[in-house]
């Protein structure tokens, strides 16, 4: 936003004069070149999207209306909305939905707030700016599987580092250690920690780039009027980087609701996909995997995928709306 606002005035360059009419046999090429070539150039994205994005979504919708069981090839044909009806009464689905939202809130809210603070810090004059900026991005570069496996050990019941740290500050008794995987709250915190760790730096850099385009005089004026750093952050920085805020909120909503790797690998037996002995932290994406590839019920899994798709649309929409309101934005 601010970029376009401060864009340099466009110079009044005269329209290039059209070249003399080319010979007829070159005309078609000329017209093709000017009218069609741009589409050819952007087509790879749309072709790829059609093959790997659009087609699966539509195909998924078709499968959701059918019976398709891998372990029972004879059970075939249209199911109508039976899969969706089953979904409404499936307590596993609602449990997974609750878990997904719980972990989503525990991860998204602190993640974006901390990212904002970090960006604010990085926006000041620091020694070794590049070092810090690359540093916060390191978790983002680490493969999820690798970091999650480390976290799984970190949060293990016996000899886990998390329990050791808690015991240092007197919250935990090493002879009766906390079993992080036993309860909803503890497993949610553990998984949210992994997500936060990975994405804070990435979001911070996005915020930082937006912050750097805010003109300094606005801050100077605010400082003259007696606004402290905290007030400057909320009254100036946040409203002025609002488009980026909306972008990150939407992105992390999508990511949070599709959470899969972390809960999957947090499990002691990653192949089980139950999300704990009582599905304490089973997310919807995990449940879809389990229904599809463990129970071999692809039709029902497809119905769940579509339900998840709709939920994400709604949540991302609400979040974008709320964030827009946050800065009193006009868009």
């Amino acid at each position: 936003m601010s970029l376009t606002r401060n864009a340099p005035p466009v110079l009044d360059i005269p329209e290039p004069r059209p070249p003399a009419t080319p010979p007829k046999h070159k005309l078609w090429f000329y017209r093709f070149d000017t009218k069609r070539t741009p589409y050819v150039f952007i087509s790879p994205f749309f072709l790829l999207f059609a093959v790997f994005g659009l087609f699966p979504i539509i195909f998924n919708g078709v499968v959701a209306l059918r019976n398709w069981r891998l372990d029972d090839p004879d059970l075939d044909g249209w199911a109508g909305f039976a899969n969706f009806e089953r979904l409404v009464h499936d307590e596993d689905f609602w449990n997974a939905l609750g878990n997904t939202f719980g972990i989503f809130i525990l991860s998204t809210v602190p993640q974006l707030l901390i990212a904002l603070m970090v960006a604010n810090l990085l926006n000041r004059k620091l020694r070794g700016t590049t070092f810090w900026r690359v540093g916060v991005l390191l978790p983002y570069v680490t493969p999820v599987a690798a970091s999650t496996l480390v976290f799984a050990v970190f949060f293990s019941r016996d000899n886990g580092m998390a329990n050791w740290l808690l015991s240092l500050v007197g919250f935990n008794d090493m002879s009766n250690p906390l079993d992080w995987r036993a309860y909803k709250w503890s497993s949610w915190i553990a998984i949210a920690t992994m997500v936060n760790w990975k994405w804070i730096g990435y979001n911070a850099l996005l915020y930082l780039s937006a912050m750097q385009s805010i003109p300094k005089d606005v801050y100077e004026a605010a400082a003259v009027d007696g606004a402290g750093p905290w007030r400057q952050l909320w009254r100036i920085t946040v409203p002025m980087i609002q488009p980026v805020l909306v972008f990150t909120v939407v992105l992390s909503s999508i990511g949070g609701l599709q959470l899969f790797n972390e809960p999957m690998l947090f499990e002691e037996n990653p192949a089980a996909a139950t999300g704990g002995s009582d599905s304490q932290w089973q997310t919807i994406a995990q449940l879809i995997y389990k229904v599809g590839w463990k129970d071999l019920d692809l039709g029902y899994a497809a119905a769940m995928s579509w339900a998840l798709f709709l939920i994400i649309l709604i949540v991302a929409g609400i979040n974008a709306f709320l964030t827009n309101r946050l800065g009193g934005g006009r868009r």
Partner: protein
Amino acid sequence: MTRFGRRGWALVAAGLAGALTISGCSGQSLEGGNDKAAEGQITLKVNFWGDMGLDKLKAAYEKDHPNIKIVLNSGEYNAQHEDLQKKLVAGSGAPDISAVDEGFIVQFRGQSDKFVNLLDKGAGSYESKYLPWKWQQSLSKDGQQIGLGTDVGGLAMCYRTDLFKAAGLPTDRDQVSKLWTTWDDFINVGKQYVQKTKKKFVDSGTNMFNPVLAQQPQGFYNEQEQLQMEGGPKVAFDVSMKAIQAGLSANLASFQPNWDQGFKKDQFAVLACPAWMLGHIQDTAPEQKGKWDIATIPGGGGNWGGSWWTIPKQGKNADEAYKFVEWMIQPQQQIEVFKTVGNLPSQPALYKDPAVLDYKKEFMSNAPTGQIFASTAENLKPQYLGKKNGPTRVAVENVITRVQQGSLSPDKAWPEAVKQAEKAANS
């Protein structure tokens, strides 16, 4: 600015497309190259889990058959079976040879049209060599043989002599066997051990549940595929609850990293062990050589696990695959596997073979593993394991884990177990 951005994106997209095409092509050509590397070269892919003692066999077979290359692919137990199921339905991608465990054989023999009927390849001549029940278990209803047996589990109780000694318990395997003729005795011994050492006795309640269930005449399902929770499962569940309430369990999920660590940190002193478990113990805790021994299991014999080699029909090298399978089940190779990892052959003639009968497992304090396991395997009446046996077992194990974690009270556990088992049965 914006105009340039768009152009930039188009470039990125085009580049991406190019990259994808290129990598796609190279992937293809690589695979093609593998298939027809040298003239007449045949690659046999073998899927299994854990350690089946195949490394030496592979080298020996490849040496004698220069045109055969064997690719061993060991994975997680459940994942390998699920993967096979997916590939069978998809119609491609299955390995040339796949191991199938007892827990899944009913599921796969019901799809005998997707496997090579080994009787067509001349496997009929081996029928008389196998334990009759082992031969029957992989036979489909219409009489097709989908697999040739590798091993049977048998059941015994492994224990740590050094930890027993420290707790003032006997260490001699005959004396230890006398300590526990019933599971109640076993739990009492456990209580003594826990009181004395302040350490846990068994690795997990689920590893009490599984062997006790294996000893019952009927498992989760009857032969009409109906769930029968009040029979065998109830008995086994009660034993595991008793053990958990007595504080014997270290609550470690079997075959997972923490369990492996539990071996090394002496977190448990006994482990229900079928013959195939010996290989796992010595792979996990090689430094505990001579600290383990084997006693009989409370409640008499039983069988837990044991596998077959199957040849999915979609493979292109069925003849070569069968030759390799046939070679693997010959006495010499079976004895070799028995010696390296401990898996007990499923051909009773071998139980009389001096190589098995007189074999003493050095790792297990020179226990005569051949004698111990053979005696449990020979007079066995195997359970019928239903099509949904695998998922049902996981569901009940999860309930046991919840009790161990303290999030479910033992008196509410049984109804919950029934509920979860029914859910698994109907999923």
